[in-house]
């Protein structure tokens, strides 16, 4: 059974924006919002670090509970998706989300303005249907992680990405704690 998650390695992220541009392109997200935001802590000071913020595809997603029209759901593979046909743009989900993942655009196609958009693990793009009215559903293939310049952002099955992260952190531990 897969369970899709992200890991963000703050010891590698350099705020290059690769994830941002990759997501924009893959999902056609309009100008004023982004499914992935890079936040810098302590800019210009010692300890400066960059964190990428997206939907974290929570196991018990508060947004799903908050949505009054049941427009958000969690799939069996762990991915939290939203249905823009149902969304009424009330922004309750943003009250509930601990990360500020849901966004409400002012630009882009008129019928989608104010309608919630967020990271779908690249499964559903910004416009969830194509020009024939057919819904688009893609294989989970997070472009932000695939394109991450430094491999700071890992996305995929939780057991796999945590294993990758384990390997990396083990190296750091050997160096810092054990001093080998």
């Amino acid at each position, binding site marked *: 059974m897969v369970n899709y998650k992200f890991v963000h390695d703050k*010891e590698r992220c350099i*705020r*290059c924006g690769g994830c941002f541009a990759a997501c924009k392109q893959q999902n056609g997200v309009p100008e004023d919002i982004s499914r992935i935001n890079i936040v810098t802590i302590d800019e210009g000071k010692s*300890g*400066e670090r960059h964190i990428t913020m997206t939907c974290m595809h929570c196991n018990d997603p508060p947004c799903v509970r908050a949505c009054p029209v049941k427009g958000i*759901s969690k799939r*069996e593979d762990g991915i939290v998706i939203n249905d823009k046909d149902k969304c009424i743009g009330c922004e309750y989900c943003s009250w509930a989300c601990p990360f500020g993942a849901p966004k409400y655009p002012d630009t882009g196609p008129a019928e989608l303005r104010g309608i919630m958009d967020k990271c779908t693990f690249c499964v559903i793009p910004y416009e969830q249907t194509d020009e024939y009215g057919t819904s688009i559903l893609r294989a989970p293939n997070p472009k932000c992680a695939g394109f991450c*310049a430094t491999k700071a952002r890992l996305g995929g099955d939780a057991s796999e990405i945590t294993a990758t992260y384990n390997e990396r952190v083990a190296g750091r531990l050997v160096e810092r704690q054990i001093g*080998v």
Partner: protein
Amino acid sequence: MATKTNSIFGGSDIKLSRRTFTKLTALGTAAALSGINSVSAYPEGLELFEEVTAAPAAATNKVKSICSFCSVGCGYTGVVEDGVWTKMEPWEDHPINLGGMCSKGTALANVTNSPRRLRYPMEKVGGTWRKISWDAALDKVANKLNEIRDTDGPDSVFFCGLVHGSNEEAYMFRKFAMLFGTNNIDHQARICHSTTVAGLLNTFGHGAMTNTVIAMQHAKCHFFFGSNAAEAHPVFMQKVFVAKERGAKIVVADPRFTRTAAMADKFVRFRPGSDIAFLYGLINVILENGWEDTEYVENRTYGFEYVKEAVKDYTPEVVERITWVPADDIREVASIIALNKPSNIIWSMGATQHSVGSQIIRASAILQCILGNQGEWGGGCVPIRGHCNVQGVTDMCVLSHFLPGYYGVTSEGSWDWYAKCFSDTPSTSGKITFDELKARFDTLNGESMMTKIGFAVSRWYEGVLKPEAEIDQPHNIKAVVLWGEATSSVTEMKREKEAMEKVDLVVIVDPFPTSASAMPDRSDGIILLPAATRQENSGSVTTTGREWQWRDTIIPPLYESKTDMWIFQELAKKLGFGDHFDYNSIEDVTREINLAVRPIGCQGQTPERMKRQKENYHTFDPWDGRAKGGPCDGEYWGLPWPCWTTDHPGTPILYNDKAPVMEGGHDFRAKWKYPDDEPNAGEEIVRGNLPPTGDGSGTIHWTYNYAKDPTGEVNEQALAEGNPPTGRGRAMLRVANTKWVDRVPKHREPIESPEPDLVATYPTYEDKKFYRVMTEFKTEQQRSIAENRHVNYPIVLTSGRQVEHHGGSAQTRNSDYLVQLQPEMYVEINPKVANDIGVKHWDFVWVKSARGQCKVRAYVTERVNEKTAFMPYHWAGVFEGQDYKDRYPTDGVELARGDSVNIIASPGYDEQTQMQETKVALCKIEKA
């Protein structure tokens, strides 16, 4: 490796009917609301839905290619649907980037598809832009160039640019100028790494990065000295982090607390322009503590005593006074780099763009030799080149002082060799003799201009503006051809603007109209030729680590744009030397390069081998870049030059004498003219079993005549004898060429110095005429002091890169993704400076220097200290506060425009190469 995670996924879009989709999500929602974790009806595998696909399947084509921004050389896959480039996918097992790319790379499709592209040739007539046909445009350009050639001579045209072009296009550009009959051709390497080339070439024998990016994983210490790789070369940091996780230390010395500095174990902030003093402080401490590699120094270098003598006065305390760095910090940095080996030194423009740039590089190279790092995996000199193919274009010598492969223009022998190559190559039908080639050139005072170094891109405008008698060529420059060249990257922009207004014709060849079309205040005489982007044609490109990769066409040129090759061919026809350009394919040009470019070993990188590597990329081990088994068994990724024969694996680490040459081993060059003051240097310069044979003059050690070896026999012989064709020499810690003023580096204050009393002790050079123009060193430095600039302009201004933009940024400032990330020009100032002048974050300010002023946003940050300000250099389209948006062709107004730091930058130049001193100027900041 991290990438495995993502490789499990397929990438195809699955479409399903609206009804099915709704049913699925509803179930999922219900499950989640009921508090049960997830019982969605979503089944394993997505194939199930394919049967309900309603839309016709698009004809999808996937092409692997190479990023055309920086020189890391990241690979990616372009997805083309029904002929439209819709998406990109990571090239997950690409040995260099493992799929990773920065924002510029991931915006490549966005840039290519930009609606602001130049769609057809245009001409400015009577103040308005008009569409013209290709035929008319080329006729106009060719007629004017021919007319100038006839009346003023070929030197009255200046060609520049092409840094993003392939090796083949660069070679064609240089050949084009050779046949036109001028050395007035230059490109951006002049203002990015010309000092690296001069410094390293005169120390080691080659002017390039001595490692590959992949090799960075092997280092035990990365010393960033003049590089902000996290912004300038993001994917380079992937390798740095791998090393860090294996215990490597990261040290960053920079005037600014950069994003790279934020990831360092140790950061020191030093004064812009005090680089040599800083490096000498380190060497002083290293020698004081006996941390040098005595055996290495003994066996592999020449001139150590001179260095010892030179550094002895640079004690940490003296260095503290010059650099503003506490003496203990200097000691600490020295200990980290000396005790964690192999360590390297990594630089970019921070080290190169100085009036002592070549000497800063020399000092860096000396440091590496003294520590014995030079030639080690992960150690050595790491000048990260800027543009995607600036290494290749440098190698193909779109430069006013070299011919392709670093054959000096001042030697007739170089021209003789090229006359032969142009005639003998099976790739073209043209024939030309040495005398015919020479006759293409003008003469001055009875001497042929063929063997005279041309103008540098940093000073070309002086060829227009200075009185004819003051420049070393027959007549002023009357036309300029900007072939993918950003005018905003050159300092003294006001003079450049004036020159662009004065010439008869400005030709701009570019995928975008660029800010150059808007800068000159003129109503006629600008022709814009729409060039294809690098994603719309193919050819080989060389990474910063000398690796040749084949860049493939993702889509054919959009609109009416044409490839550079086509434009060269058409223009050459009209100028009367088309028979030297009648190549059938770009691969034909590669083959001509394989034939001609010998000193740096370009014999092994045939189109066939490059393409074979591209097919078999997965067989290369990302740890050392070497193929283990498969069709490329034993080859290094990209066949890094020198690659002496088609059986040679490439040379990943220059000067590595531990590996056999046929396994990628190498050594320092043996060909040095003995210093006049040491005519019997002998064994001190050449080592190993190469007997000094001389060439008649009795002073040159050079056993193998590899540079003029049309059959390749010489290379074969050298390799059979176990030697690199360039011989086995020593690293020249003291420059052999007695024409260098400083044969061992010494600190000299920048042209505009904030410290007049240091100028008294460490003055700059005497004024000097070179590259056809008088250049003021001492005069300008003294003028600065006389005008009290250190008082009137109390802040040191430095410049650099933003990750989202690139070079002059004609491409990136036209990409909506990148502009969303980085929309406006700014100056970074310290909170204290901001508060003192009453400015809040993002207010407008004027940044003023003795040259002019810029109106930009204030970015209030502690990245810079109170004495320093920083501005990115990518911006143009606004000139001293005036927005030029009305001057562009209507459809081509750049999406984001900003004032250019190079309007106010220093008029300092490097004493060897005419590199501009963009990293140190004096300024003041006022509320706007």
